């Protein structure tokens, strides 16, 4: 039992608030009552599945009436001993997540810089820009899927009028990831922009006036003042995007289902297939544990960036 600062400071309660017996005890330990429901929820709905997944990852089981077969670390051994599907998924995930988060952060910060001024229609512009974040991903993915159609999609037509070589977009193994990245960038850059903009607005304007008096160019002011000051917000936004980008499911499942072949099969989709297509529940569980550690590692790297160089 740990005491909160407030409880130590105030000591045992007197007066009407303290009440007697049970109600007094409740009031003194109230901080635990506040969090109890959420703790129970996290235990039942989150912690239990995690433990269950760890357990299941040591078995081979098709989910059918036959009981699971104990294989110990066998599933993990299979994953790391050259499961081509896993290696492909790992590469696809790193490619998709790495490039899209990088572009989204760069573009988002740039857009925030562009919008961080007074102009007519600022409110409307901001509202319109966030629509991709709110739109239903399945619906947007269906639209993008058809826009990418090699024979009658509008992107194919755009490419033609710009005299670009004909593209097969999602249908070609070499262009499917860049096409998905463009979709992701379209959908999530506004979020980074919004978060950066919130950081920019809170910056004091007198620093800029001082910098200007000292003869700093706008470019220098951006690199030397703005960027260091909003870096915590940018890193936070990048972390958020990284976590969600690794989790991307709807957009890829609806547009390509991981295809052509397995060219766009991220870890998330690979696990989904292993579990719900092939009913390899044990193997899928082992993959999930590996996936979790990958996400954790990615976040540790990003957090260390927040503190890092000045």
């Amino acid at each position: 039992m740990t005491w909160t600062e407030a409880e130590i400071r105030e000591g045992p309660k007197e007066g009407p608030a303290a009440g007697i017996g049970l109600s007094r005890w409740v009031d003194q330990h109230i901080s635990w009552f506040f969090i109890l429901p959420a703790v129970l929820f996290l235990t039942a709905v989150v912690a239990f599945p995690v433990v269950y997944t760890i357990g299941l990852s040591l078995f081979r089981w098709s989910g059918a009436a036959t009981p699971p077969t104990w294989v110990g670390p066998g599933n993990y051994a299979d994953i790391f001993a050259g499961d081509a599907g896993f290696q492909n998924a790992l590469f696809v995930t790193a490619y998709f997540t790495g490039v899209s988060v990088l572009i989204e952060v760069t573009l988002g910060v740039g857009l925030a810089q562009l919008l961080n001024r007074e102009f007519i229609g600022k409110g409307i512009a901001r509202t319109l820009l966030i629509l991709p974040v709110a739109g239903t991903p399945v619906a947007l993915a269906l639209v993008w899927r058809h826009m990418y159609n090699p024979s009658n999609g509008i992107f194919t037509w755009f490419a033609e009028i710009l005299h670009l070589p004909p593209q097969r977009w999602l249908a070609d193994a070499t262009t499917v990831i860049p096409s998905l990245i463009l979709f992701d960038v379209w959908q999530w850059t506004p979020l980074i922009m919004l978060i950066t903009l919130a950081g920019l607005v809170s910056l004091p304007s007198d620093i800029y006036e001082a910098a200007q008096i000292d003869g700093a160019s706008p470019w220098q002011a951006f690199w030397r003042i703005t960027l260091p000051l909003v870096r915590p917000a940018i890193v936070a936004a990048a972390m958020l995007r990284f976590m969600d980008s690794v989790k991307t499911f709807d957009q890829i499942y609806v547009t390509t289902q991981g295809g052509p072949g397995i060219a766009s099969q991220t870890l998330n989709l690979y696990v989904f297939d292993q579990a719900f297509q092939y009913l390899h529940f044990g193997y899928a569980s082992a993959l999930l544990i590996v996936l979790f550690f990958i996400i954790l590692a990615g976040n540790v790297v990003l957090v260390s960036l927040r503190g890092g160089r000045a």
Partner: protein
Amino acid sequence: MIGKSLGPRPARTARRTLFYCALILVLIAFIFPFFWMAFNSFKTHEKILEYPPAFAFSPTLSNFRNVVSQTSVVKYTWNSILVAFGALGVGMVLGLPAAYGIARFRHRMLALGILVCRMIPGISFLVPWFIVFRSLGLLDTYTGLVIAHLVITVPLITWIMIGFFEEVPVELEEAARIDGCSRAGVFLRIALPLVRPGLVSAAILALIFTWNSFLLPLILAGVKTKTLPVVVYSFITFDYLDLGGIYAASTLVTLPVIVMVLLVQRQFIRGLTIGGVKG
């Protein structure tokens, strides 16, 4: 522009023109897919297949008529609403006290647990849930779907509300306690009314993200409780035979979200940025 010297007038005008051109290009790029979705939903299937894409055509409502008559849209919409509000309500009951507990009593472990919950892909819960729900008979039930979607709403609500509760002045709460208010009373009668703006933001985000959710109902819902995103996706299994239907269904499921964002854009943006900066 932050009060800079703007140079001679022509240069200033040129810069301003350049800015508005850039802005309009950016807006078109981000809005176009929405426009295209709505635009194509009024074309016939044959018209959508035309290449180069048709910009002039006689609009038809037949796609919407087909979607409404071929599927029980009303029932699926009801399912979506039920699950969204169910997960919102239970999420508030669990998340609000938790956020207050974290803000006031510094329960760091819980904060960490909530963050990890945000980090883990939905699919990690899905495998065990699917197995457990199957044995408990919770597959294809509203209860099961609401429980599942709590994994979206509880972390979201908690994370947004921590910041709002931290801004409630402690002095106000202490004054209420001296006047004889219990801790629970302070939370319900002092803190909660003061964070009402935050509640609106959290509620809107929770509703939108539950409404948009696809993976969870794809596995856990069935014929009875299917929500709209799953229904919209099922249009594709007709192997693209009815593009009009796909566009119309996409428009129908997206429309409520767009309307909601346009109505309460300030709260929506605030929720997103708080969730973001804190995340």
